[in-house]
């Protein structure tokens, strides 16, 4: 016979104001199995918790019902308290009489009656709760970091420096990400590459870090502590083992300087075989097979590329002997690794500022003429212009004719905070980098006019507002509060029409160049990636954290963590901070050889032979399980022949959703913590 204690919390006035707690305690006392029932001011307080602990000891309670706030608030608190008093934590349940009773009902009588009902239902449930012990799963102390931008590099270095192996996967031929493209960084104006490149080199040469560039994730299976990841090493057509990165091939390529360079956002040019940028890590070229004359010819002829005689100048130019480092016959390689934790740091994409491409999730801002006028560029392109390693060696020259623009208009919030054109969210970093751009422009073109159209100036952060003031006051950038309606070209100049909402005037500016501060957006394939990692994502395809405040770097899937701009627009310090936080979480996970999981998992019953289990092996549960936790167990007799195949739950994989239970016709699966008997009892007490 169960001995249940019921504890009713006043939560100050929060509950007591609408629920008659003493009366509830009296009524609870007469419920079946209840041997102790009290109400108290604040149960979550220390004295409140000791009240519960003492009662557990004194009355030898076998179950506890705490009627107070939502279990989402304090379940862990009270279960811990129960455990400290020697009661199995899973024999403690909560009845939510605050969020779902006292706060939502005004009528004292009704609220009190409801509270009693909710408690009775829990009392009935608790009477059937079992002692459960946490599940132990081994931890493979190797981490997978996806994305080699600053966030990925930081996370990888932190984990590697703690002595664990890290597999760092980057989609592009070089690590570095967007930060490598930036000129100077706000608010200190220190050179982005100068602070980044040492980290890049450190990551690439770190003994604990295995780097896979030009690679993508094929699949992730398994569960926290025990993932298996398949990585596709895309064919680089260059043997990185042999290549010394001398770059002879890149010069020899007949297409050299003819293909828009992604790294320079099309402002610079590259060849079909290329090293993305001078400080690339690894400093080795890849062949862009979609452009390479030889590969295209081979494809047209339908012959293997090594049998194709077209071009091949890169191979000829390669000084490595006897075997050339250029390897046309190279193919994609899939490698499999076992890891215990994953950090997703896949970063963001920048909205170009033009019309949407097929499949884009926004209407775009065609009226700004990004697609029509070469001198309308976006923020990242300006970064390349301003960068010493950029296509103009850091001189601000407009793309159309290479002249120095005398008037530059900067337009903020292009695509961001605009549901009609782009996205509802604020892209967060644009206010700062636009101030920086205006500043850099004025530093480089002293006579130039910098005009900034803004909706608001948002500059919270250390030294941020001072930085914006500097742009306005010291470098007299002209800030106009208002939107730009459209940009057209008149006589070689750009006519920018907009509004000054402070003076209420319409404004027209004749500009030589326009820089659009466009929104950071989620990667176009972020949703696909999220599904691969069983992580959740929001309407804009940003990956979502497990809890917006209390679990900001965890994903919905245990063992998968988030770092950097894949989770939302961020600047460098925020990305680095989050990356280190994610690394910290990984290290917590790696700090023990086994990890414990809440034992709220499904189990298939076992019975005596010859039945062995009431499971008839239809495996509807197996197909229904979203986590892939159900396995086939062949029950064999002494002679070793299979007598029956039944379902078995892999406790490590099971996420405890219970979909299998409802899929089982014969009722052979239970979900610990939510067993049929427990739910039945709750309904029974309605």
């Amino acid at each position, binding site marked *: 016979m169960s001995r249940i204690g019921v504890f009713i919390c006043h939560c100050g006035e929060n509950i007591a104001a609408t629920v008659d707690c003493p009366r509830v305690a009296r009524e609870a006392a007469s419920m079946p199995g209840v041997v102790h029932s009290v109400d108290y001011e604040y149960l979550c307080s220390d004295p409140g918790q000791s009240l519960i602990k003492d009662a557990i000891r004194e009355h030898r309670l076998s179950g506890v019902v705490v009627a107070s706030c939502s279990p*989402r608030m304090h379940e862990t608190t009270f279960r811990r308290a129960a455990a400290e008093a020697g009661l199995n934590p899973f024999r403690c349940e909560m009845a939510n009489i605050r969020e779902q009773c006292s706060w939502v*009902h005004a009528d004292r009588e009704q609220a009190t009656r409801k509270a009693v009902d909710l408690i009775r*239902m829990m009392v009935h449930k608790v009477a059937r709760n079992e002692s459960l012990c946490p599940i132990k799963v081994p931890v493979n102390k190797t981490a997978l970091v996806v994305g080699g931008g600053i966030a990925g590099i930081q996370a990888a270095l932190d984990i590697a420096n703690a002595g664990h192996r890290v597999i760092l996967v980057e989609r592009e031929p070089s690590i570095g990400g967007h930060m490598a493209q930036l000129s100077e960084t706000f608010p200190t104006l220190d050179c982005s590459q100068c602070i980044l490149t040492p980290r890049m080199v450190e990551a690439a040469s770190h003994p604990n870090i295995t780097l896979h560039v030009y690679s993508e994730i094929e699949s992730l299976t398994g569960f926290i502590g025990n993932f298996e990841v398949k990585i596709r090493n895309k064919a680089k057509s260059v043997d990185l083992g042999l290549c010394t990165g001398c770059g002879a091939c890149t010069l020899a390529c007949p297409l050299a300087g003819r293909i828009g360079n992604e790294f320079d956002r099309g402002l610079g040019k590259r060849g079909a075989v290329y090293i993305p940028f001078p400080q690339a890590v690894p400093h080795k070229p890849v062949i862009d097979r979609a452009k390479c004359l030889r590969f295209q010819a081979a494809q047209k002829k339908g012959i293997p590329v090594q049998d194709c005689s077209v071009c091949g100048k890169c191979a000829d130019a390669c000084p490595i002997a006897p075997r050339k480092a250029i390897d046309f016959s190279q193919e994609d390689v899939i490698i499999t690794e076992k890891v215990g934790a994953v950090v997703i740091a896949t970063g963001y994409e920048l909205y170009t500022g033009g019309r949407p491409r097929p499949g884009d999730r926004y209407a775009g801002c065609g009226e700004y003429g990004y697609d029509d006028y070469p001198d309308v560029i976006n923020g990242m392109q300006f970064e390349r212009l301003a960068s010493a390693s950029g296509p103009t060696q850091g001189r601000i020259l407009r793309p159309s004719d290479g002249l120095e623009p005398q008037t530059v208009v900067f337009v903020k919030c292009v695509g961001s905070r605009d549901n009609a054109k782009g996205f509802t969210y604020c892209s967060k970093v644009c206010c700062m980098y636009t101030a920086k751009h205006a500043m850099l422009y004025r530093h480089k073109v002293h006579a130039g006019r910098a005009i900034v159209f803004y909706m608001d100036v948002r500059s919270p952060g250390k030294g941020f507002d001072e930085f914006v003031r500097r742009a306005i006051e010291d470098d007299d950038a002209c800030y106009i509060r208002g939107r730009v309606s459209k940009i057209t070209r008149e006589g070689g100049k750009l006519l920018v029409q907009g509004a000054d909402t402070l003076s209420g005037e319409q404004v027209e500016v004749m500009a030589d160049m326009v820089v659009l501060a466009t929104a950071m957006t989620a990667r176009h394939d972020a949703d696909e990636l999220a599904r691969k990692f069983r992580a959740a994502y929001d309407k804009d395809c940003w990956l979502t954290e497990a809890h917006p405040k209390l679990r900001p770097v965890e994903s919905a899937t245990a063992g998968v963590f988030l770092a950097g701009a894949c989770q939302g627009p961020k600047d460098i310090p925020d990305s680095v901070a989050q990356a280190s936080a994610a690394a910290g979480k990984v290290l917590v996970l790696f700090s023990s050889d086994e990890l414990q999981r809440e034992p709220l998992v499904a189990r298939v019953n076992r019975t005596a032979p010859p039945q062995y289990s009431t499971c008839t092996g239809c495996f509807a549960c197996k197909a229904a399980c*979203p986590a892939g936790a159900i396995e086939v167990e062949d029950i064999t007799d002494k002679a070793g022949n299979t007598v029956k195949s039944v379902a078995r739950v892999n406790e490590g994989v099971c996420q*405890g959703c*219970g979909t299998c239970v*409802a899929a089982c016709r014969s009722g052979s699966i239970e979900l610990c913590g939510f067993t049929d008997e427990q739910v039945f009892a709750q*309904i*029974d007490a*309605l």
Partner: protein
Amino acid sequence: MAEFEPKIAAFVCTWCTYAGADLAGTSRLQYASNVRVIKLPCTGRIDFHFIIKAFERGADAVLVSGCHPGDCHYTAGNYHARRRWTVFRKLLEFAGIEPDRVTFAWVSAAEGAKWASLVNEVTEKARKLGPFTRYQRLNEIAEGEAER
């Protein structure tokens, strides 16, 4: 006499609807006190036996609610549940149970207001239908037999 107060059983998932109901609380949204919530990890766990049993225990209406399609914490539990109910609700209707006795709804953790209005709506529907006398007569007979 006093207005009939229906007894309503709600089976909800812990991640979306239960959280949504909590949000309704923290936002102090007032709604009818007739609903008794039974919290489950996921709508996928909700067995059709629950609904029948709720009626057998005198519920006048049942509410089943979880994460919106695509938002399931377990990625697909709600899809599985939806497929089962697509057919089950029609079966109940065919057996002569008014459709309005069972309500299905998606309520996300952010939709506290939706939860509040949903509960009111379900309560209103149940009030209109009146006590579930059909089923309760079965219950009386059954309990009567049990006593003998």
